[in-house]
């Protein structure tokens, strides 16, 4: 009887504490390495994009009147949460307050989308983007009642108009 109880206790500990804790630790480690890699990559690309002026102004600041016709440029990014962040967010939702990890997740998605848009502008020979607009898409199914199939993720779409500036304005 005592032995059976001990085995049951160990089994319960493994199933309800050790395994979930190991999974959370693994998700935390994987999620953190992904996040760090992404931030490093973003920092390098944003440094290379410093010559591209990105504004949300409706006009064309510093536009070259003889420039080729401006073009619509867009960028999009869907960045996943990880198991650890989602679990922490579950707790945060219970107690209320800011979720720093999800705030950072959305910021990463926005930076990625803007960098892609600016890269698209540069690839077509432009050096400025104006009238930038942000928007989002609910691919995760969080607003459409997908219930348990809903996936926590940060999705950002951004659009703007690419044009060329006068060399004096650069």
């Amino acid at each position, binding site marked *: 009887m005592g032995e059976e109880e001990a085995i049951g206790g160990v089994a319960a500990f493994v199933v309800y504490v050790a395994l979930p804790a190991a999974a959370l630790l693994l998700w935390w480690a*994987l999620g953190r390495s992904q996040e760090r890699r992404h931030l490093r990559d973003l920092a390098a690309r944003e440094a290379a994009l410093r010559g591209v002026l990105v504004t949300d102004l409706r006009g064309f600041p510093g536009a070259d009147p003889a420039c080729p016709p401006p073009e619509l440029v867009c960028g999009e990014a869907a960045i996943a949460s990880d198991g650890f962040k989602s679990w922490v967010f579950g707790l945060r939702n219970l107690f209320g307050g800011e979720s720093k990890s999800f705030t950072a997740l959305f910021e990463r998605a926005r930076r990625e989308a803007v960098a892609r848009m600016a890269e698209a502008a540069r690839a077509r020979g432009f050096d400025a983007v104006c009238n930038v607009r942000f928007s989002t898409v609910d691919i995760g199914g969080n607003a459409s009642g997908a219930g348990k199939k809903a996936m926590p993720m940060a*999705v950002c779409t951004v659009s703007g108009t690419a044009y060329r500036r006068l060399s004096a304005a650069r």
Partner: protein
Amino acid sequence: MIVVNTETVPGCRIVELKGMVQGNTVRAKHAGRDIAAGLKNLIGGELKGYTELLTESRREAVSRMMAQAEALGANAILNVRFSTSAVTAGASEIMAYGTAAVVEAEA
């Protein structure tokens, strides 16, 4: 065709407005990509399948909008805006709309 999300085009003047044009699309990725995305949501990182889905949807919506503008005899679409709707997990609707116009270079 000049497609911009501003109300004016530098160096060009608007000759004629042709009215609003729009294009939309609802797209999804195959079930395998959805399963992969579900797993990705445990380990973190970019959901490349869904980024691709957005890019394809936006291109499709814009090209449908451009086809409408072309049919109206316009050579530019001004003030382009995007709008989206929630469909279900793994799918999205993107609509692009703007004002079709005829523009010409300022003398």
